[in-house]
């Protein structure tokens, strides 16, 4: 094959022969915003997407996990191997992703429990970066139920604040509610290929 790369770059340079000098990028938009209760805003906005969301005290996280799983009747849960030990509440079979679970196993579990890397209050978004207590991306994708623990100190108010906390070269997944579609008459309905139930515990 001849040199497509060289030709395209030459075309670009020829197209820019007029040397356009666009105005400098002015970033006078609001990079951070202060709200009285970021956690409260996150809870409200996550709920707007028809996710289930609870505000819990940090010490109560393990018992609230047990309570939520019991309420849902879940018996097997996939989990990244490095979630805090107490999160693996009794009464449930925990399947740690180490060695990596087979896809078929993951497809058969009742749900998955993870932490997160950051959350965006204003948009009701949780961000996973495959770091601590999150595991690889498919863990939070294949099971039909995702229970996610967010710590209050992980909550940013605005999108710019959240992006500044993230490392772009990690595999990132931004999650805003359960999977949904607007493809039928441009109206949103929840529940397509990703987890159809998203439940969030915000601990503080």
């Amino acid at each position: 094959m001849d040199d497509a790369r060289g030709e395209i770059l030459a075309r670009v340079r020829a197209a820019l022969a007029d040397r356009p000098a666009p105005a400098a990028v002015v970033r006078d938009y609001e990079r951070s915003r202060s709200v009285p209760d970021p956690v409260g805003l996150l809870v409200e906005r996550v709920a707007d997407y028809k996710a289930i969301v609870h505000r819990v005290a940090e010490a109560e996280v393990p018992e609230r996990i047990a309570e939520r799983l019991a309420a849902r009747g879940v018996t097997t849960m996939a989990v990244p191997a490095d979630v805090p030990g107490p999160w693996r509440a009794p009464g449930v079979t925990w399947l740690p992703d180490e060695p990596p679970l087979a896809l078929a196993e993951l497809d058969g579990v009742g749900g998955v429990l993870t932490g997160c890397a950051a959350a965006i209050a204003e948009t009701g978004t949780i961000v996973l970066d495959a770091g601590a207590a999150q595991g690889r991306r498919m863990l939070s994708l294949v099971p039909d139920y995702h229970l996610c623990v967010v710590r209050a100190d992980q909550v940013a108010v605005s999108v710019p604040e959240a992006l500044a906390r993230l490392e772009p070269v990690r595999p990132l997944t931004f999650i805003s509610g359960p999977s949904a579609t607007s493809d039928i008459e441009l109206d949103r309905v929840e529940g397509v290929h990703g987890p159809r139930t998203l439940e969030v515990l915000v601990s503080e």
Partner: protein
Amino acid sequence: MGGRNPVTWLGTPSFPKAAHDALGDTQLRRNLRKATTTIRGKRASAVAELADWERLRAAGAAIKDDVLANLDTYLVRLEEAVTARGGVVHWARDAEEANRIVLDLVRAEGADEVVKVKSMATAEIGLNEALEAGGVRAVETDLAELIVQLGDDRPSHILVPAIHRNRAEIRDVFRRRMAEPPASDEPGDLAEAARRHLRRKFLATKVAISGANFAVADTGSVVVVESEGNGRMCLTLPETLITVMGLEKIVPSWPDLEVFLQLLPRSSTAERMNPYTSVWSGVTPGDGPRRFHLVLLDNGRTATLADRVGRQALRCIRCSACLNVCPVYERTGGQAYGSVYPGPIGAILAPQLVDDPHDEQAASLPYASSLCGACYEVCPVRINIPEVLTHLRGKVVEAKGKRTPEAVAMAAAAWMFADARRYEVAQKAGSLSRFLARDGRISHLPWPGSKWTSSRDVPAVPKESFRAWWRRNRG
């Protein structure tokens, strides 16, 4: 190389004819009115939540203008970053070359089926058809793309290609084509049917193909914005991922995304944030595909870049807000535009990508507008669509230069003026045209003059030419 650009569909009539036919479809108009009215109201409230919306728009436009002005630098930077993280970068001058690259990659994996994330770039180049011709089945996994694919239909909207179908029509398509048809025409049941239909494909297919909403030059990070989770399935489960991306999808650095991740969801689905956004950089051992190929697509983009007025179309982030507010689009639907890019943005993007002044269908697209300006007002990257429309209309007239009746007449006049006798013979013939005139005006000239008089009257030619009068009186 050098074949016809498939961004417009072969055999589509020019816009006025296609629009005329579409206007006869009352079901289509009802479906479109319902969908666009819903989304217009929601978009307005999603945008009103952000006090700094206008500043975000200005920043979005400025970032994209910087990308375009320095595109060569950013392309090379992106290539370096993706390569450093284990990805392989390919360059494609046109649709044919891109399709061949992808088909070769799929064949190298020994796959005869691929799953696809909704992607305008691959729709633009006709990738599915090219794969099929090469013996590879491409399974669309986005709900609306699936509706179009199963219905043997064509897309009519950038974001929701099946927007012209209502729930009952979608149910009928699914009933015909799915092993487990939907329980009803409730959107929830239709989504459930799609989930069951595609689940096994997601879990078993080895190669996925995606587009990209953004790619960060500094870090090599590629971004896909979606709703259903079909994107995540395609981006994480297969062993090999092939991403086809238009050259202009670059942003320089990671913080630039803070602008676009606010502009895009609110403008497109009118949400504070879309359900899922995936970001990946090259290959991550133990997480996601083991092989990643990025195909950088020109296909008319550098030609568009060369036009000082028209190049702003390359800022487009494919939100489709301009379609949803356009009075012309709402009445004709997207298929009348004869391209995967319909609506106001399509009317300026498709003809520039085609880059053939003699393509009559493409040349008709800049006229598919009343120049009301609603598209410019909602555009999150401030593309002045009316300005580009009028600019392109000017180019159409200019390009017709050597072929229009006006131009033919001018060329003939030059020939006549060159010889006195020819000129007089022609004048006598011209005076015959008086027989066609009423009240001193000519409303219908025979071809080729008919092309001129179909839209205007011509003053009748006087009985006697000035030269004849002069010779008779002074000669």
